[in-house]
């Protein structure tokens, strides 16, 4: 038996070969070369650029940036889980000022469409970052109100429609850049927070961030991750993420949606598009296979050939369902 580690058995391909994108997408007015981006926290230019031409991606979504450098959580920060992983990075990052001089200009110079992921411990934190990014070269902002690994901000805002509405309303006044709100699946009803974000001024939604999870070391009886719990991502979360996108699309027929969660093949990306996403982002798969995001984009580009109706909707920024 031939074993193939591409879980969906999609045809293997040489991602290094030059490629002309056949199917673009438009998200909140911003054109992406193709519907596949990188997911925040799994892409750093300094690391990924050695493995593939990052400007080939539909968009590059960068690691959450905060007003000042953050140290994040102590290690260990990860544990393996069946067909997935748990992480508790806690948004370690060198801060927005560093980002503005280091990561962003380099990405723009390469020709990438850039989504800057914004983190904060408080409304004021988010506001400071957004204000600094307002005049930057970032193409889109993604407000991370869904990180499960921080005690203030992150998921604590994204699970509370009132707090979320206040925050997004506030940020809306600070920038005219397309603003994506990144939602957490750790809520009773994701459509409620989705609606709150949109009514407060979000131009698009991205979902999902990680599911709260953990692992225990049976040799010690103690949690593997220092932070104890963390966020689950990878193929395991795929059906959950897909249902989140589906439900938000049913509730909000017009809002642009970026589908995220467990994507490791063009076929899985396509399921997200059929569920109602306008684009997708690849996260964990890039960790265990650096060129996975580009491979997914290529596979999807080919799959869309046979789906002209879907491709046509994407190309003009229309929603599928």
């Amino acid at each position, binding site marked *: 038996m031939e074993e193939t580690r591409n879980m969906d058995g999609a045809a293997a391909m040489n991602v290094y070969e030059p490629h002309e994108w056949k199917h673009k997408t438009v998200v909140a007015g911003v054109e992406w070369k193709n519907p596949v981006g990188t997911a925040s926290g799994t892409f750093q230019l300094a690391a990924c650029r050695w493995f593939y031409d990052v400007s080939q991606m539909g968009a590059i979504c960068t690691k959450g940036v905060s007003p000042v450098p953050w140290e994040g959580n102590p*290690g260990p920060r990860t544990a393996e889980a069946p067909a997935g992983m748990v992480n508790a990075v806690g948004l370690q990052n060198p801060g927005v000022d560093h980002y503005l001089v280091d990561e962003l200009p380099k990405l723009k110079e390469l020709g990438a469409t850039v989504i800057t992921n914004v983190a904060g411990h408080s409304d004021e934190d988010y506001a400071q970052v957004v204000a600094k990014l307002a005049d930057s070269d970032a193409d889109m902002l993604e407000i991370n109100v869904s990180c499960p690994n921080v005690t203030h901000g992150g998921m604590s805002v994204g699970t509370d429609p009132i707090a979320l509405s206040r925050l997004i309303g506030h940020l809306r006044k600070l920038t005219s850049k397309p603003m994506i709100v990144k939602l957490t699946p750790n809520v009773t009803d994701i459509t409620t927070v989705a609606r709150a974000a949109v009514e407060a001024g979000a131009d698009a939604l991205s979902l999902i961030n990680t599911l709260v999870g953990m692992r225990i070391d049976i040799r010690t009886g103690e949690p593997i991750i220092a932070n104890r719990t963390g966020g689950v991502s990878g193929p395991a979360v795929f059906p959950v993420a897909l249902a989140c996108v589906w439900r938000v699309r049913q509730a909000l027929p017009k809002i642009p949606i970026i589908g995220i969660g467990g994507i490791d093949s063009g076929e899985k990306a396509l399921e997200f598009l059929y569920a109602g996403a306008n684009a997708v982002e690849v996260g964990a798969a890039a960790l265990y296979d650096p*060129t996975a995001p580009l491979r997914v984009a290529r596979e999807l580009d080919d799959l869309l050939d046979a789906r002209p109706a879907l491709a046509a909707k994407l190309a003009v920024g229309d929603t599928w369902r």
Partner: protein
Amino acid sequence: MTTATFHPTGDVVAQAAEAGYFPGRHAVEVTAVERLTDGVYRMTFRDAYIAAHARPAQFVNLFSKDPMKLLPRPFGVSETDGDLVSVIFAVVGKGTDEFSRMRAGDTVDVLGPLGRPFDVKKPAHYVLVGGGLGVPPLIYAAQSLAAAEGSRTSAVFGYRNERFADAYVARHADATYSIDESEGNVVTLLDRMESDGTLHVDGLDTVILSCGPLPMMKAVSLWASKRGIACQLSMEQRMGCGYGTCVVCVVDTVDGRKKVCSDGPVFTSAQLGWEA
């Protein structure tokens, strides 16, 4: 046997090189898996790229064939030979158990070489202080330094019991000392070297390169800093990617939390704040 190539067809290493990139994850042929002692194995695989580029303390990610187990398993390169690369590992869980059962002709997915190597540019007397499964990168340091000019190497290895790596390091090091738990630890050996005069080689600075359990490395750092000896330590942490993109593999340093996989695995005792 089965192949486990994750993605590109054909020779990904050549394709990447031609396109000007580092090779992504790719399948390589396992040429040998030997048992060194209880639960410790040495795997050799064929990878001309890694063999040509790996430097001491750099590591490779190996991947399980079980798609339930996605995270990389990092292992320090322990030796190279032509286009062959060896790693030495202990079976501690499911992934290493799987690797230990592989046989010549099997394939394994690999990514590497990864990480910042030991700094061995300047000629010196490199004392390679290793404990347990920290010894592989030191064997490779000895091999690399043997090929270089002007330096001397002394291996100082501590084991729980069976001295499984002495034969390997002795192929390359100028001197090999080892000890097991019944007798003492690597600091016992360092003390001996200090008193019998083998620690200092005329005309050469002494530099310690160390890898092993945390308490051992801390003790070695302290011992070295008291004597003004420079000390480079190769650290371990659970990893998400191994190539610097996920910030999962941090260790606390005096300059804040740093990535073991790309800021390290090598840190100086000063960076770790492990000085007296």
